[in-house]
C-alpha cells in the first residue's frame, strides 16, 4: 500500500464543505481563482551547479523549491551476468541497459532517508524514468563499461504541498541539460573520453530521442478534474492520481494520422505516451464528518440516536468525507485529460521546452 504521503492539514468541517462545493461546481471556483487546468507560475533555471553533469532548480509559487543534480560515473559492468543473460552478446551494437544503473535519492527536510515518503517519491520518479527501458540503453558505453547515473533530488523548503510534481519537473529540466563527455575510444577498448566539454553529448536530445518523463498531479472532486492542486484543494479531493508521461520521438511511422497533424498549428505534434499512473490516498478520507444543525445540540437540534439513520447526510453545506473508491470512468477521464491532444500534458511540455535557455 502506498504510504500516507499527503500531509494532513487541519481544516474545520465548514471550510471543507465550502471548498468541496466550490470545486465541484461547474466551472470549478478554486480558492485562488485559477481555472481547472491553470498552473501556478513557476520559476525555473537550469545548469546551476558547475560540478554536476546537469542540474536544475524550480521554485513553485507556493514557496516550495527543489534542486536536482545529475552526476555520471563510469562503472565496470559485472561481466558474469552479461555473459549469462545475453544470447545477442556476440553481436555488435546490441545495447542492453539495466535499471540499477540509475540511482535516485530524494531528500526532504525533516524526514529521514529511510522514511516511507522519500522512498515512495523516489520510486515514482524512477518508475517513470525507467518505464520505456530505452533510457538505460543510452548509459551503455561498451560491453565492459557503462555510465552510472546518480540523481540527487533535493527539496529545499518544507513540503508545503505534495512535492511530487515539483520534484518531477525539476528532474525533467536537469535531465534535459545533462551532458556526458564524448567517447573517443572504440568498441570494447577501455573508455577514453574527450577533455573538451563543448564536445560533450547531451543525454537527451529531444527531437531525436524521447523527452525525459514528467509526473503531474491530477485530482478530482466529484466530476470536476483539477490540475496543479494546492494544499487546501488536496484536502477535499475525492481521488488523486500521479500521472507520468513522456513524449516519443517524432517518427515517420505514424503517417496514418497525417490529417490530424495538419490541424495542430505550426505542424507541431506531440506524441504523448503514458508511462505510469499511481493513485495517492487523499487526506479527505481521514477527516471528521460535519454536524448538520438538526443533529447538533449546540444549535438547538437533537443529538443523533444511532449511527444508522445517517443524521443529516447529504444535507447542503455539511461536510461529508468521501466514501468508496473513484469510478473507473473518472480515472479514465483524468488520464485522458492529461494525454489528449492540446491537453495539459502537451502544454506543460511546451512550457518546459520554452523554459530551458
Amino acid at each position, binding site marked *: 500500500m502506498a504510504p500516507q504521503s499527503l500531509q494532513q492539514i487541519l481544516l*474545520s468541517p*465548514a471550510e471543507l464543505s*465550502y471548498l468541496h462545493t466550490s470545486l465541484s461546481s461547474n466551472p470549478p*471556483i478554486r*480558492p485562488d*481563482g485559477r*481555472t481547472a487546468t491553470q498552473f501556478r507560475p513557476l520559476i525555473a533555471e537550469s545548469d546551476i551547479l558547475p560540478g554536476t553533469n546537469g542540474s536544475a532548480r524550480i521554485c513553485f509559487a507556493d514557496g516550495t523549491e527543489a534542486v536536482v543534480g545529475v552526476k555520471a560515473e563510469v562503472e565496470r559492468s559485472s561481466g558474469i551476468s552479461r555473459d549469462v543473460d545475453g544470447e545477442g552478446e556476440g553481436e555488435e551494437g546490441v545495447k542492453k541497459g539495466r535499471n540499477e544503473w540509475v540511482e535516485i535519492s530524494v531528500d526532504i527536510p525533516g524526514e529521514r532517508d529511510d522514511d516511507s515518503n522519500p522512498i515512495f517519491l523516489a520510486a515514482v520518479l524512477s518508475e517513470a524514468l525507467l518505464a520505456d527501458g530505452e533510457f538505460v540503453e543510452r548509459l551503455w558505453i561498451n560491453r565492459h563499461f557503462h555510465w552510472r547515473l546518480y540523481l540527487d533530488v533535493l527539496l529545499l523548503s518544507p513540503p508545503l504541498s505534495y512535492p511530487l510534481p515539483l520534484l518531477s519537473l525539476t528532474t525533467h529540466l536537469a535531465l534535459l541539460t545533462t551532458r556526458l563527455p564524448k567517447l573517443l575510444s572504440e568498441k570494447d577498448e577501455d573508455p577514453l573520453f574527450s577533455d573538451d566539454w563543448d564536445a560533450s553529448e547531451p543525454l537527451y536530445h529531444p527531437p531525436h530521442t524521447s523527452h525525459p518523463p514528467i509526473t503531474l498531479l491530477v485530482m478530482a472532486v466529484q466530476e470536476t478534474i483539477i490540475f496543479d492542486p494546492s494544499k487546501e484543494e488536496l484536502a477535499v479531493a475525492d481521488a488523486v492520481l500521479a500521472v507520468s508521461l513522456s513524449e516519443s520521438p517524432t517518427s515517420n511511422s505514424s503517417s496514418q494520422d497525417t490529417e490530424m497533424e495538419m490541424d495542430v498549428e505550426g505542424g507541431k505534434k506531440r506524441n504523448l505516451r503514458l508511462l505510469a499512473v499511481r493513485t495517492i490516498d487523499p487526506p479527505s478520507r481521514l477527516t471528521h464528518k460535519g454536524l*448538520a444543525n438538526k443533529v447538533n445540540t449546540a444549535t438547538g437540534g437533537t443529538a443523533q440516536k444511532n449511527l444508522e439513520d445517517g443524521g443529516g447526510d447529504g444535507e*447542503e453545506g455539511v461536510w461529508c468525507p468521501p466514501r468508496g473508491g473513484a469510478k473507473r470512468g473518472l480515472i479514465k477521464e483524468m488520464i485522458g485529460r492529461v494525454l489528449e491532444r492540446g491537453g495539459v500534458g502537451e502544454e506543460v511540455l*511546451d512550457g518546459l521546452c520554452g523554459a530551458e535557455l
Partner: protein
Amino acid sequence: MAITILAPAPAEPIYREVDPSEDSDNGGADLEGDHEMRPTKRAKHSTFSIVTPGEVVTDDAQWMRGHGTYIQPGSTEIIATVAGTIQKTNKLLSVRPLRARYTPEIGDLVVGRIMEVQSKRWRVDVGAPNLADLPLAAINLPGGILRKRTETDELEIRTFFSEGDLLVAEVQSLRQDGSASLHTRSLKYGKLRNGVFMSVTGTGGGGGVVRARRQVWTIDTMHGGGKVDVILGVNGYIWISKHIEVAGGETAITRMEESISATVYSSQNEYIGPETRTEISRIKGVITLLVEQGFRVDEDMVMKGYEAAVTVDDEDLGETNVYLGGAKGKKVVDLLSEK
C-alpha cells in the same frame, strides 16, 4: 497557456534607502534611521541596512537598547539578536525583525484554530509561539440568556468547538510566558463558517496585517457577489466569508442574543452562490498579492486592491478569470502604486 515558466529574476533589495523627503507608510516612524549619523558608525553597511543576529549595531554609548538587541555586560556594544532592520526612536535603538511570530497583546482581534480540546478549555493556534487558551468560561453558551456553565457543558465541550474549528476571538489577558487567553463573549466573536481561511504574516515584519481601526468590515462586491465579510486577525490569520444577515432584522436588543445564538456553534454552511464564491476568491487573491508585494494589509488597501482587481478584470473582455498571478497581478499592482 496552462503554465507559465519564468526565469529567475535577481533578488530585489527589500529595503531601499528612504529619502528623507518621501514619507513611506511606516506610520511616521523613520525605519531607516538617521542618515547623517550612520556613516560614522556603520560605514560598510550604509547602503543596505539589514542586520543579522550577533552583528554589532553600534558601540556608541549614547544609544539605549530596545527590542531585538542586547548589550553584553561590561561593554557598550549593542548587538542585534534578530535579523531585521534597524529602527531608531529618539535614542532608543531596536531591530525590527524581517519575519516574526505574532506577539499577542490585550484587546487584539485574532482568528484562531482549535488544536486541542481539554476538559475545561481549548488550546488555540493563533500563530504565536505558544498556543493560546480559550477557557470554557470565556465563551457564550447557547441558549440565549447568560448562564452559569454546568457539568453538561463540560461533557459536551466538543459540540461548541472541536479540533480544527476556526473562531474569531479577542485576547483577554496575557500570561507570564507571553501566551494569550482568549474570550468570545460578544456577538461579534465565535465560530467561523461560510468562507475561506488564509494565513499571511501578521504584525511583525514586512507586509502583512497591521493593527488598524477596523479589522472587520463588509465589502459590497461587484458582479452580483453580494456582501462579503472580511476579518483580518491581527495575528495574520484572515477569514473571508459570505455576509449573513441576522434573521428578523427588527429583533429587540434584548432578544438579539437569542436569535443569533441558535446558529453560533453551527458547522453547516448556508447556501453560497457561485458569484459570491468567485468574489471571495478574488478578495483572497488580492490579499495574497498585497502580501507578496510587501504592502500592508488593512481595510483601506484591501478595498483599493479589490477595486483595482475588478477594473483590471473588466478590461479583459471575454472570460472572467479572477486569478491574480502573472501579468494581471502586475497590472493590479501598477494601479495600486499609482494611487
